[in-house]
């Protein structure tokens, strides 16, 4: 069940049998969620963190006029809110974009890990630092990149993050998100996303259709998105 999470951790550091066992033992239950369901609301105190096993989730913030900014996408193997362990309530919501399966890890069990497994604790700290690096990359996209650059960078990031957990190769990956989801990730409108996807296809970079991202030319796509994979800190890949 947590193999993708273990693969993600191992991409960034070594993991002992005892540490793996400690992670398994920290899980209190498994939950299934439908798509488009806010599972953690901003400002509400939580006593557990959510480990995404299957499906896609996102962190988002809304403006009063209904406009939504997705601030990070979560792929299988990610903790959606490891930071809630220290923050206790979140400054953003977390929702499912597709049907999802998740493992629930009570904060009490995470506290035990921090006390008994300092190396694993550092790996998790590392993980929240990588989340911050992803946020910085998205800031760069939202503030400075062109529509084409924003989408190219996003598809490159997902390609690598999904490859780490065995859900992508250099030819592409399944991405069951809507154009609205992509628009909310990139600060564009649906139609603008649609038009930019057409441009990317015509330029021979990537074809997005029917929930599949088919990469036509990975090197050129990375160039278009000015994608430098070092911000994902994949030391063991």
């Amino acid at each position, binding site marked *: 069940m947590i193999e993708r999470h273990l693969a993600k951790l191992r991409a960034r550091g070594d993991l002992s049998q005892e540490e793996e066992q400690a992670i398994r033992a920290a899980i209190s239950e498994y939950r299934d969620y439908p798509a488009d369901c806010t599972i953690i609301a901003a400002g509400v105190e939580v006593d557990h963190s959510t480990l995404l096993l299957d499906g896609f989730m996102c962190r988002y913030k809304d403006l009063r006029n209904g406009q939504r900014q997705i601030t990070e996408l979560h792929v299988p193997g990610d903790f959606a809110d490891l930071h809630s362990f220290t923050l206790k309530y979140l400054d953003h919501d977390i929702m499912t974009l597709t049907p999802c399966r998740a493992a629930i890890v009570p904060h009490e069990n995470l506290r035990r890990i921090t006390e008994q497994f300092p190396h694993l604790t550092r790996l998790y700290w590392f993980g929240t630092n990588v989340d911050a690096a992803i946020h910085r990359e998205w800031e760069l996209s939202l503030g400075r990149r*062109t529509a084409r650059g924003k989408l190219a960078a996003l598809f490159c990031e997902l390609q690598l993050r999904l490859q780490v957990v065995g859900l992508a190769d250099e030819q592409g990956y399944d991405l069951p998100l809507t154009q609205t989801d992509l628009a909310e990730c990139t600060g*564009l*409108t*649906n*139609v*603008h996303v*649609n*038009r930019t996807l057409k441009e990317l296809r015509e330029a021979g970079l990537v074809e997005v259709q029917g929930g599949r991202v088919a990469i036509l030319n990975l090197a050129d796509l990375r160039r278009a998105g000015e994608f430098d994979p070092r911000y994902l800190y994949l030391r063991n890949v």
Partner: protein
Amino acid sequence: MARYFLHLSNSVGYLRDDEGIDVTNSDEAGRIAAQTIRSMLSEEVKQGRFDLRGRIEIADDHGNTVRTVPFHEAIQMFTDGPA
């Protein structure tokens, strides 16, 4: 909620919207069409180009065009007179 489709027609060609947006009514679809036009034009302006020859056709669930928003209706433009 109702689903509307925003089909784009401009100097580059025609781009069909197969996904659509869920909104309360056609007025809201019109507002989103205007936002969309502004978003696309602003990107073009940053590249030094401003082309108002285009429109968004808003179609309902049955494929009927309920409204057309020309690009120039989404912006106010001033070219003469004192600033």
